[in-house]
């Protein structure tokens, strides 16, 4: 089957029901997307599918065929960090870093849908587990990223 990942097409031969997570990690060696629970509870495996944050540990690969898949590796367009990634560095969010691919992808999706999220919007959208407890920096970085996105939109506009 053919998968469109970060703008590139990949041909793979696997079982239809293999979760997308394991296709990414073990078949394509794209290890930025992480395994945390395998039951759609922690969000470590989050990628964007047609722009929507999706947990891939329970998503059969066949469901992603014909869709645009964007992983953490594709978030920085041509090597330029996204507003979210810049804010993540500015706030020094990651500790161990293991959950952060999922957090960043979830934040991108939140900001796409809600460009200026309130704390409550963030509470609702950001349900990924961070065992290191980086939540307050995640929250702060999302607000900063919203600001950066707005600024660059104004510049472009």
């Amino acid at each position, binding site marked *: 089957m053919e998968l469109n990942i970060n703008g590139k097409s990949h041909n793979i031969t696997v079982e239809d029901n293999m979760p997308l997570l394991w296709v990414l990690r*073990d078949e394509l*060696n794209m290890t930025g997307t992480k395994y945390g629970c*395998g039951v759609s509870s922690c969000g470590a495996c989050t990628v964007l599918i047609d722009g929507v944050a999706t947990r891939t540990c329970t998503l059969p690969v066949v469901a992603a065929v014909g869709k645009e898949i964007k992983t953490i590796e594709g978030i920085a367009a041509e090597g330029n960090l996204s507003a979210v990634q810049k804010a993540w560095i500015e706030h020094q969010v990651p500790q161990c870093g*293991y959950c952060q691919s999922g957090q960043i992808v979830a934040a991108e999706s939140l900001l796409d849908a809600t460009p200026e999220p309130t704390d409550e919007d963030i509470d609702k959208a950001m*349900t990924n587990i961070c065992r290191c*407890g980086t*939540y*307050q920096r995640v929250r702060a970085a999302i607000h900063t990223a919203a600001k950066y996105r707005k600024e660059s939109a104004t510049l472009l506009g």
Partner: protein
Amino acid sequence: MTIKKERTRGQKWTRRAFIGTGGLLATGLVIGVAGNMYMNKAVKKYSGTGMGEGESLNAWLRIAPDGTVTVAVPRAEMGQGVNTSLPQLIAEELEVDMSRIKVIHPQPDAPYANTFLLSNSEPNFYDGYDMMEKVAGTLALVTTGGSTSIRDGYTNMRYAGATAREMLISAAADKWAVEPTSCRAENGFVINEKNERLSYGELALAAKEVDLTELPELKKPSEYKVIGKPVQRLDIPEKVNGTAEFSIDTRPEGLLYAAMRHPETIGGKITSINNKDAISKMPGVKKVVLTEFGAAVIADNTWRASNAAKSLDVEEEDGGNGDLSTAMISAKMLETLDEAPLATPENEGDVESILTDEKSTVIEGTYEVPYLAHAAMEPLNCTVKIAEDNSSIETWVGSQGASLVKTWISDVTNIDADKILVHTPYLGGGFGRRGEPDFIKIAAAVSMEMKGVPIQTIFSREEDMRNDMYRPAAMSRFKAVVEENGDINAWDNMMALQSVTNNAITRWMGSMMAPSPAKDIMTIEGAAHLPYNIKNKRVAFGNVELPIKVGFWRSVGSSQNAYFTESFMDECAHAAGQDPYLFRKSKLKGHPRFEAVLDKLAEISNWTSPAEPNRFKGIALHKSFGSIVGQVAEIEKVGEKEFKIDKFFCVIDCGRIVNPDTIEAQMEGGIVFGLSAAMFGEITWTDGSVDQYNFPQYDMVRLSHSPKVSTHIMDVDEYPGGVGEPGTPPAAPALTNALFAATGQRIRSLPIAKQGYKFV
């Protein structure tokens, strides 16, 4: 060259430097002890492995021609920031900018022994204390844990930087034929009086040959440019773009994946596999193996391996613990509380006669906490490749016990430890779990079944959670007599739990090395030798013998003892009718660092201002791992037994500050870790098996539950304390004390959610 021999601080450090040399002696790397580990020729020539190009001036740093300094960080990066804070110590003395620094994790060789690890509690607690420190040095244990990385490295790393700097200066002075004292080092260059400059990259080759005769003087804190600054973490750029490699991301050529199937019950053993042939034919499966640790399936993909492992039909002997249950464990702890204690590490005055005096009003409370899983975000895994002819082993594993990895793999494979190469990628959380041997030994056993290919053995989340080395369940029974003026006349604390140190060290190094339960300083850490002035006090404990494997869990004994003691301290304040802050403060005469933390905490939390409606505060103060932390929880009542944990105020005195932003991050994360345990965390047992499988049954604080944390770091010119763990212990009692303020109900058993409380 004139180098002053004087050091900036005390003798203790000298002793540690020499103990480090002891480790080298033990492994035959060094013969003379004249001098020390930075100037000793053998160590200087010893360059570690994988340091990249350039010249090594000692075991900790190598300088490339372009001036890049590769720093060997011999501690695992598990989120605590060592990849930045340890290099900061070197950069400060070496006079280089942090942007010049590249970090590697070296092979866990003798110069990198962590001599502080086994001595991280109060000094001279037991006679065995100094002995354990020597053991750590002699065995050259290269380990990460006990909030020791800075405490162990604070001296070593600065001397590594300072001696290298002096060697570079000396090499430049030689070239210019001037006195070294007329030259100075600045930002990667040596500069002479004529303002001529030579870069470190140009000087490294000659500098390598310089023999220093004396230790250089270290900078005074007032001269620091890098230490004490919120330097951006070097590991963060690759942690935001998906390129950071954790051990689970190891992808050597030809990698296969193995999924584990552990026995169902504690002490159980899988004796045979009934459907081996059928499983072998499943897609992608390469081999089905039975090891002494359990069954495993090797396949070409983690998911295929995992599916196959789940489908295994196995025979299991239950190990005689098939009837173990949580109710039974609680009953056993209660029994132990009533028995004569195994040890009474603190016994001052005459507690007994005050408690039994009929004129005394005795207050009492029995507290209980459950077993807890570590649940690090990255499930346990280890990749091992064993050469077909047994000539070498290569392993990639996020371990907190890098040097022990060699021992453990050697034990399982019977291949010499010196043929084993250990790579230490990033750890997706450690919290003590990654210091254990089990997942490494299992991976070695699996790889023995298929040599010549690298195999990554992974625990599924379920296997990870149900086969942890848990924080033990524990009970504490307090009795106290509080005088009318608020003095605590008697304080009695009897505890019951399994011995973590005895249990864990037996697994690490065998029972011969393990301290007996009576000598386990972790049991009483945070329960005995409290800072409060109490006239008569007794702290005792009993050992609960159980087959459950228990281990070091972020903040260890303090994880339960802070909750126990600071809750009961609140009970005493309540009995005296006094404000919990002022009550504690009145007992801190003679402990100025504690009092200063408490006062600052009251200040930043507006403790004494009248509370807004429906808002309540709780306070807790606790010292662990060399640092004093005070916290105030501010909660809002939103319904009957329904609360929002709005804010946490945190004050830490960790002595000298290396990276303030890292300290704040560790406080924020430590509080969330403590709150997860206080609110939700519980591992229970039925029929000898763990009831919880995955996050839906063992939930933790998520973003919506996490409070806003404000941290204040005290400015104290003392030897640094730890920061990875001390943020965790006060979180639970600060919260439960706030809940008491709100409801008048004392929470004597965790998790809180089990008492009918809800959090929004």
